[in-house]
């Protein structure tokens, strides 16, 4: 076991890990941050996406020791400082961008990364950016709508309300 330290959601944390301990395991089991989900083992589904030094990454495909010292942000760190929902989180609720909620943490983290890179994406850009985040419930319609709305764009004209 090796001691690993990093900053998670603004707090310095450390813990004992093996070589094989994935960042997702360290977050979920080591730190009890169970908002980060694991939905596959082939790096496809994106439920585990977190930000590592500001970049979206699949925490199930990164070893904890490989991001020692990094700044990690998870879904638990996405709300406003007063605990209210952030603009992106609020847009997901307003536009019914989630159902079972399992893909949602990864979806929100990817959406946040997108809007940081591209503050006013087109529909096609949102769809393309989220290709690594699988959702089985929503058919993506309301997720795309929520992300467009979170970017400040008018979504009232989108088909089917």
């Amino acid at each position: 076991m090796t001691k690993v330290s990093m900053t998670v959601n603004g707090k310095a944390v450390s813990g004992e890990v093996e070589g094989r301990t994935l960042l997702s395991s360290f977050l979920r089991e080591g730190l009890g941050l169970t908002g980060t989900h694991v939905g596959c083992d082939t790096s496809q589904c994106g439920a585990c996406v977190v930000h590592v030094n500001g970049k979206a990454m699949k925490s199930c495909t990164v070893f904890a020791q490989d991001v020692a010292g990094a700044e990690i942000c998870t879904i638990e760190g996405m709300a406003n400082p007063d605990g209210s929902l952030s603009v992106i989180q609020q847009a997901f609720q307003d536009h019914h961008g989630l159902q079972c909620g399992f893909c949602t943490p990864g979806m929100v983290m990817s959406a946040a990364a997108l809007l940081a890179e591209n503050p006013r994406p087109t529909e096609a850009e949102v769809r393309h950016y989220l290709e690594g985040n699988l959702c089985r419930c929503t058919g993506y319609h309301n997720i795309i709508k929520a992300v467009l709305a979170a970017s400040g764009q008018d979504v009232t004209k989108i088909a089917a309300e």
Partner: protein
Amino acid sequence: MPKDGGIGARTKRREDVRFLTGKGRYTDDINIRGQLHAHFIRSQVAHGRIRKIDTRDAEAMPGVVKVFTSADFAGAGGLPCGWQVTSRDGKPMLEPKHPVLAEGKVRHVGDPIAVVVAETLDQARDAAEAVVIDIEELPAVIDMKAAVQGGPLVHDEIGSNLCYDWGFVEENKAAVDEAFARAAHVTTLELVNNRLIANPMEPRVAVGDYEDHSGMHTLYTTSQNPHVIRLLMGAFVLSIPEHKLRVVAPDVGGGFGSKIYHYAEEAFVTKAAQVLKRPVKWTASRSEAFISDAQGRDHITRIELALDADHNFTALRCETYANMGAYLSTFAPCIPTWLHGTLLAGNYRTPLIYTNVKAVFTNTVPVDAYRGAGRPEATFQLERVIDKAARELGVSPVELRRKNFIKPDQFPYQTPVAVVYDTGNYHATLDKLLELSDYKGFEARAAESKKRGKLRGFGLAHYIEACGIAPSNLVGQLGARAGLYESATVRVNATGSITVFTGSHSHGQGHETTFAQVISEMIGIDASQVEIVHGDTSNTPMGMGTYGSRSLAVGGSAMVKATNKIINKAKKIAAHLMEASEADIELKDGKFTVAGTDKEKSWVDITLAAYVPHNYPLEDMEPGLEETAFYDPSNFTYPAGAYGCEVEVDPETGKVEIVAFTAADDFGNVVNPMIVEGQVHGGLAQGIGQAMLENCVYDENGQLLSGSFMDYAMPRADDLPFYRVDHSCATPCTHNPLGVKGCGEAGAIGSPPAVVNAVIDALHRGGFTHVTHIDMPVSPARVWQAIHG
């Protein structure tokens, strides 16, 4: 306008806040102090005889507590099947044992053989490599027709791979054959309804816990119906009486059918926790889910449609081979029969229908209900053969359908396949669809596509489904071994807030929001005063769970019934307090009034009186305000609709792009339009996924070729368009109190034939008129092959 929070309002979901902040509590988030971890060793061959299992080396490895094999389950029953189908010859289906861990033989890749339980999951996995398993591989049978034509036996002891041979309606067979002999035109189509994998984003998890001093078992599991698991596992597998078995299904990350069934892993962790006196946890990896979750669909069908000279449908005849996989999953036998054969009338007046279904055992993962379950298979074959008939006859597929629709004034409509449709208006949904999809403008759009070298096509499909499952006395006659009612307890607290305990389970459907809307509307209090509790057998009344688009139609009805009992009692209390006749008491906006007077009591006045009964008719009525109701539906509900798909095909690569998809549904009354639309969106994505992307494929040795997301194509955000959905053509259900029909499965049922019909239309418009059918998924390679075939 509906009031905010009441029926018809687009109320935002209260459950979202916890999911959006990482505070959801899914089964894998549960860790009990002292818990052990289970790793299942599964068969790598599709068929084989177990010669020897040697666990000694593994049991000596670090952290290992015990390695279990079937010997440890010698006293346990098999995983039970909840439905018995009777064959044409009057004999019951063949029902081989489905052991918790393989006994003597393995019958599919993924069949569990042994389980290592260790202090950590990595230790369990490491030790699994030291378990020596000697298996004599046997020839596997994968192809259904080969299986019933002398292929290797999946279960030696039952002597056949034919589970049942079902005819429906058997008495109509001769008349159907006669109608075909007289037909002016017969259209025939052979097709495959591709096998699918449900893949809810949350893989299955089970945690078993046991309290030695009380003998109390607790199972936390990713289930759509915890009470059903308690009943099946307790009564049939582990012999645990219900009062000593608590089953909890907390937040569940989607189900789509695959989390209805009782699985071996649930029985395993429950038993192992008792044996080891420590909690035991199992979490499926996605790779494991691919070979252990029940799969869906997998039919091979030949369908024939007979028409007279005026293009009226005169008879329908089908033969289907339905794959059961290696064992009967909980509800597997009823899917290709009672949820499939009974829907073959579709939206049409076809007077004579006969279908023969042969259910077949193969060396593949068990098959059971997946979103739609039987109804997508019925809809696909029917809507494809109608399209093919229209093409053969040179008539519009729109008009051929319209001509044969059941007319709005013919409801209730008795079909020739047992069911009676209570309401519907198929002409209205068709007209709405054509309007919303700008059908008139299609030719211009097709011309524009052509300029870009693309072939544009329009595909139409209608569907009907039987939802609100189900009248218990009817399904009992049809072979169900369970009732299909639902229950609810409405507990009004002393200060007026309400806690509802429902047997329905929410795993994405938003019951916590919609059920509260219904209560809010009925009593006139703010929805925030209502809490919906579900998913725990220790605090909710008996429930049959969530599937078959039944939650609001059946579970909601039970809640309405219980709430009506509450209102009746509350009125009696109000009558007492206001010294009025009970018949004169009215409840509106949370206030009780006496007709014709200005007397008034608030909701809270009454609830407080019920719990502080100082001035209360104690001789006539008990204190308290809590009621339970069971609701058993008198009929199925029949959601129906018209779906239109517009595609562009790239003839050089065969790639199909969905450029527009429109759905005009009739769900009856709608409690929360936002949630209903979301359900349709999700169903459409799964239906389009089946039509264009998803395919569960085994090779001839029974190895799963599409065993991960690397080869099983899940629909992604950029595979799909924005959908146009509408539910304005509502004909409310006539036999449940809310007039609701159910919306969860519709999208997955109606969309596959719309997509395929659109692709065929595009190819014909491009001059590839030799293409009459392409099996799903209509992948680029298959479309290209069809063009060049």
